[in-house]
């Protein structure tokens, strides 16, 4: 069951993101970026 190019199969797109894709990435991206920024601020103490 190796994936093979198959014109009969449904095709998922790699097209530029639609609204739902952007919203989905924002939903997980915003908390992740917040967490990373908090950690980065904490890490700055090492360089003081």
């Amino acid at each position, binding site marked *: 069951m190796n*994936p093979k190019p198959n014109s009969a199969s449904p095709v998922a797109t790699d097209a530029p993101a639609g609204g739902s894709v952007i919203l989905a990435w924002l939903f997980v991206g915003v908390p992740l970026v917040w*967490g990373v920024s908090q950690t980065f601020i904490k890490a700055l103490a090492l360089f003081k």
Partner: protein
Amino acid sequence: MADTSSSLLDRSRTIASAGYNRWLIPPAALAIHLAIGQAYAFSVFNKPLGSLISGDPANPAPSDWTPTQIGITFSIAIVLLGLSAALFGKWLERVGPRKAMMASALCFGGGFLIASYGISQHNIWLLYFGYGFVGGIGLGIGYISPVSTLIKWFPDRKGVATGMAIMGFGGGAMIASPMSVALMSHFKASAPQGVAPTFIVLGIIYFLFMQFGVWTIRVPADNWAPAGYVPNAEHSALITSGNVSADNAIKTPQFWLLWVVLLTNVTAGIGLLETASPLIQDTFSDKAMGVGNGVTAAAAAGFVGLLSLFNLLGRFFWSSASDKLGRKTTYAIYFGLGILLYALVPTLGHNLQLTFYVIAACVIVSMYGGGFATAPAFLSDLFGKFQVGAIHGRLLTAWSTAGVLGPLIVHQLHDHAKEKGLTGAAAYQNVFYTMAGLLVVGLLADLAITAVNEKYQEKGPVTIEAGGH
């Protein structure tokens, strides 16, 4: 409306329609991994849980829980992660990712609620059962739930796709730690240390957050492939065109060699992470650097934070790089470069080379994270996509073993060094040399991995009912 909620969770209801954008799948996976990655931030509760009776972390009451008692909670969770990933992997392949994600959300969120009740009653067994046992099962199912789906959606970028999800596990702690501190501060007036209500809120938040993954995840239709994708074997003969079941995979030497690879990489990484804060403070103390120039506790916390960032970045960077380099070569880099750096770190400490010391530690930790993220793609290369989630689940028992072995080795060696009167960098020297030795074992195991014998492969086409897709 004939549909029931349970039928909505069935695999058959999650098959993507034509035109479904596969870039919705990584955020669905991230929603699960960002939530369960909270486990890495459990230590934020250590002091509050250890002072529920006295109310003062600096002066715990005799009846307060000890750090060792509290630490067992995390150990149970990690052991259950590995066990449940191994036990429920085949079930996951059969029922599909949506039902598995829902089970994970119920266990992980529910575990917090049970643990909260245990904390309010000061009953540590309920804490162990709730967060450790029930929550640990949620961790295991959640960790493997999106992996095989991602590999099926991204056969052309397996490393990138799984790297994104597993990066979320590293990022989860970065969200959980400040959020937990803020919640405990908010609830401090209404409950001892504010811990019990914090657990309730976290359980609800994580359950709801994971629902995004549950209802967004889709599996591709049979024989679906990305536009223009042609299966290739450009990196090595290790990439199979067949499929091996989970039961057969564990009969192959390749599985156990990869098990050793993961075990040694994780054990070595834990060796550094486990001691990061005292390590840098002891090595670059005021005594060694001159009064006022040593690494303070706040700076050491910054060092731990920096390592967390590189742990996260390494998961994505190295796993993505493995798509180009090949998995075996990528692991050889982890081990080859790791051996050099682990052997070098004590010398950097002796010579008080703080900058290079920090850089070396960051690279080491990035490869520790990379080791986790590259494993699913390596499994898919070796055993095919058929039951890769279940095989991955069984491989994660190496993580559980390393979770016990790593701290044990580190504490034994460090205690022994202190008993001999060694201080500063010298007290950690044998820890690093031992970890370098472990990485030599890992390198040899990696180099010994060859293509899986065709006799282990499934004969004929594999089906969903048989556990694949």
